[in-house]
């Protein structure tokens, strides 16, 4: 599938990353939280909370709070921080606005998460003069549209652009001039190397490699010996070479939801009820995105942290609550023997297809029951529940 881009064709790639997105949205909507440490994520439950931090404002980061940290740790680092539950509906709304701004600048926009995207501006520089000008314009437009700041990296490829945006955070604009990729990366610590995982970094560190420049200096062969196939791509990335194209329509591969129990449980009635809730939330999101999937996967983590997944593939794509719930429950019953307590359950749907029939009367036609229900949930939140027939 992946097309190799003509190496002689110099590209202008921008990476746009919203600064502490969820936390910034909360500070935007609630002026009283501005200048205060804000942590969006699971309920800290007085330091006994079990989830993780989804986002931390820059004020919170000063206390050492980072996203993906256990919420309990964040709580201990700064008990006085404002702890908030995420409001995904609102974040999605603003994310859409940001993406709409990006669409104005180039037809080649690849959204990689709710708050970041790559834009290939090759050829549009003539219209907007230079990568730097485009980046400034984009930052200004995002501020106008949403009141939020973004950091932008400009480079000749995705990997370097991503690193550049990271370097300037928050509210940054960092440019790597074409041809200067290697110098640009040279002194940066390994953790900036986008595409290198935690384990790779650990192994490199054991080899005495500290900076990206060190990786480049090791040479291709040495890295291939150590890392086999991925050695070469590592070497290329360290040299600032990345030919991956900006893929216009971002197509997600899977969609999932999970819940961590508190405390762990072996109450199957309860677990099945939770699976029901997860199916409901998950399929609602799928309908909102206009996607359906053929494979339903149940994820289950036991009290000893062993994690299992079981899946089933259907001949056709689905996105209705009933089918997803039935499959997840079936997989759960086939798997769970009640011996160990369950810590977490989740449902994922993959083999996705994005196909949606558009409607003629978009506002005033009564939708089917599921859609109506979705609209009610959007409006009133999770207070609205379906009748459960357990």
């Amino acid at each position, binding site marked *: 599938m992946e097309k190799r881009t003509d190496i002689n064709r110099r590209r202008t790639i921008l990476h746009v990353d919203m600064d502490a997105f969820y936390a910034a949205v909360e500070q935007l909507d609630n002026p009283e939280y501005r200048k205060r440490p804000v942590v969006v994520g699971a309920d800290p439950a007085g330091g006994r909370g079990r989830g993780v931090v989804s986002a931390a404002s820059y004020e919170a980061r000063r206390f050492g709070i980072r996203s993906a940290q256990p919420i309990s740790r964040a709580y201990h680092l700064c008990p006085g921080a404002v702890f908030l539950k995420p409001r995904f509906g609102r974040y999605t709304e603003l994310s859409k606005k940001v993406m709409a701004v990006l669409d104005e600048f180039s037809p080649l926009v690849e959204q990689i998460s709710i708050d970041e995207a790559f834009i290939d501006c090759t050829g549009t520089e003539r219209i907007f003069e230079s990568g730097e000008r485009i980046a400034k314009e984009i930052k200004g437009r995002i501020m106008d549209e949403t009141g939020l700041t973004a950091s932008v990296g400009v480079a000749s490829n995705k990997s370097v652009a991503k690193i550049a945006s990271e370097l300037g955070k928050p509210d940054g604009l960092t440019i790597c001039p074409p041809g200067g990729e290697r110098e640009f990366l040279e002194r940066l610590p390994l953790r900036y190397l986008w595409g290198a995982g935690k384990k790779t970094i650990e192994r490199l560190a054991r080899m005495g490699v500290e900076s990206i420049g060190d990786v480049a200096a090791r040479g291709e062969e040495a890295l291939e010996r150590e890392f086999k196939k991925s050695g070469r791509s590592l070497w290329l990335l360290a040299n600032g070479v990345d030919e991956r194209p900006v893929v216009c329509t971002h197509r997600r591969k899977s969609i999932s939801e999970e819940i961590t129990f508190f405390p762990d449980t072996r109450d199957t009635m309860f677990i099945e009820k939770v699976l029901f809730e997860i199916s409901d939330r998950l399929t609602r999101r799928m309908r909102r995105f206009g996607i359906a999937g053929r494979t339903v996967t149940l994820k289950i983590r036991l009290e000893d942290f062993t994690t299992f997944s079981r899946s089933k593939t259907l001949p056709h794509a689905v996105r209705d609550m009933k089918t997803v719930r039935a499959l997840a429950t079936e997989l759960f019953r086939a798997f769970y023997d009640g011996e160990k307590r369950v810590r977490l359950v989740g449902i994922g749907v993959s083999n996705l297809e994005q196909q949606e029939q558009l409607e*003629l009367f978009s506002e005033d036609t009564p939708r089917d029951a599921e859609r109506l229900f979705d609209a009610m949930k959007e409006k009133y939140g999770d207070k609205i529940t379906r009748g459960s027939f357990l």
Partner: protein
Amino acid sequence: MNISIPKQKLLKYLSYTDTIASSKSTVPVLSNVLIDVSQDAICFCSSNLETGIKIQDKVASKEDGAVAVNGRKLLSIIRELPEEDVVFVSDENNRLTIRSSSKDINAEFTIAGLPKDDFPDINTQPEEEYVVLNPKVFKEMIRKVIFSVSNDENKYSLTGVFLEKNNGDLSMVGTDGKRLSLVSKKQKELGISKEDFFVPYDGVIIPRIVLIEVAKYQFEDEMLYMGFSKNQIFFKYDNINLVSNLIEGKFPDYKKIIPTDRERFFTAKRSLLYSAIKRVSILVEESYNQIRLKLTKERLSVSSQNPALGGAIEDIPVVYGDEDIEIAVNYIYLSDCLKEIGSDTVKIDFEDSERVLTVQGEAEVGYTNLIMPMKGGT
């Protein structure tokens, strides 16, 4: 009752009445067909409380009587009998005995029925006078819109055809919210002689089943009568009376969504496009029925893709000179209306791949289909 009646007549009358009888009614008698014989007249009735039908005929009656019986079973029995007349005899316990008058077989069937008493009366007299319509033109109108009508009970007001009177025209509109068919005929074409012919509220929603039934009738006679009461519609043809409640609800403001200032379009030979879609759609993925229409200069490529099976592609010549574009649609929506378009050339106009398509016969006035495309896909 004790009568003898030609098999073919019986089959026709019973199949018309049985379709209206409601299979899911909470009133048991309504799932039956009422056969009522009195003074050399026979009457077949059924009703689902929304729609009712009454068919009357002459019969030589040796004994009067009435009984309500399961229409489907009765039909199955009669279908299996020889072509000769069929003999019905009922007793005071509401049992109907069926025999053939043929000498060749001596089979006898007995069906337990219900008394006539609980059967609702079927009113055949509208408050407003009946008008006479040309049945051929009226049936054509039904055929041109009925496939777009929704089956979804959640969209109650879309489960019928909107019949509207504007100026000198009579229009029918069917839609399921994703596609829409609109046909208009001049009052004159329909043979409506009356100057101020009456349609309540100038527009009503007629349940789908009523028009499907009307379209089924084989009109030898050139007279179809239609009449209205405030919330009912009446049809009369030959010895058949059909009456139905109108659907109460607001039909969407369809005029608002009909594009008027379209510049991009292509034209194609109707038969070519129709058969290309038919062939290519063999391999569509059935849960989506999606085909893709890719337009390039003077060419349309129709393709389908099925991850489990494969795919198909077919190119046909079209008249098109605008930018290349690809549009995904449900092939059924397209083939349904192409089948009904009465013109050798079709014109399809559009704006982009996510806005409504308008499908029309190039030489056909008063027939428009709107189709919403699909988003995304393989």
